């Protein structure tokens, strides 16, 4: 059977640069393409799944929190999890444990696990290919 599993190792945090949204769009497209996806969130990316992220209003936009509907990466991950389930695909997500500890972002949304570089090796070994996106 054809292996359509892809691994992504990602290093960037939420809200800092264009690589983060690009990474999410690639994962979204990978699910559309019929791939199972495994993500190893390293360094700043360990905060992408932080459950205590909070949307805020924006006085410059003259919108309160509800109207602004500020994007949160934890919601993007949840949306991808829901999409994967709907499509019958697998989306596994592991945060580097030491990375979440040093940032105090241990409380992840459901489905995002704590792990180590051994998980990245396990993911890569079982995948058709791996894309690493480092911080620049």
């Amino acid at each position, binding site marked *: 059977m054809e292996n359509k599993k892809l691994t992504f190792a990602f*290093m960037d945090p939420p809200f800092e640069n264009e690589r983060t949204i690009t990474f999410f769009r690639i994962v979204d497209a990978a699910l559309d393409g019929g791939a199972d996806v495994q993500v190893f969130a390293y*360094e700043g990316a360990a905060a992408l799944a932080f459950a205590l992220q909070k949307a805020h209003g924006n006085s410059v936009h003259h919108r309160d929190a509800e109207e602004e509907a500020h994007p949160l990466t934890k919601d993007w991950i949840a949306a991808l999890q829901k999409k994967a389930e709907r499509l019958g695909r697998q989306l596994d997500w592991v945060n580097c444990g030491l990375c979440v500890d040093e940032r105090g972002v241990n409380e992840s949304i459901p489905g995002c696990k704590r792990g*180590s570089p*051994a998980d990245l*090796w396990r993911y*890569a070994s079982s995948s058709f290919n*791996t894309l690493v996106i*480092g911080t620049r």
Partner: protein
Amino acid sequence: MKILQIVEQAFRTLVEEQDDTILWLTQSMAGAGANLEVLLSGNAVYYAVMKNRQPAVKIGDWVQQEPADIPSDLGRILEQDIPVYVLKHELEERGLNVDMLRPSIKPIDRTQLVSLYKQVDQVWQW
């Protein structure tokens, strides 16, 4: 499966993490059984000639106790029998040369890069 880790972004997080995060990842993955090689390119070629650990940072009364020690990290990688390569022309662009390299680091030129890529299954450009 063999992976080539290309370290290009040098000195990234050296103060906060007290190491290079990809050299650390390499050591950790190798400990879990990964088959890895390392290529130093871009500003990371400086790693191949470094002899001293980083100076300790002082912020107010806070003084760093364990600054990054790249020579020791590279030493541990080499002790794990992980090959470490460096691009010669990128050394020379920065006023460095192969005589400055620590022993066991292998200088390669652009043409050898092709065969290096061919001998691994995946190339991870960090």
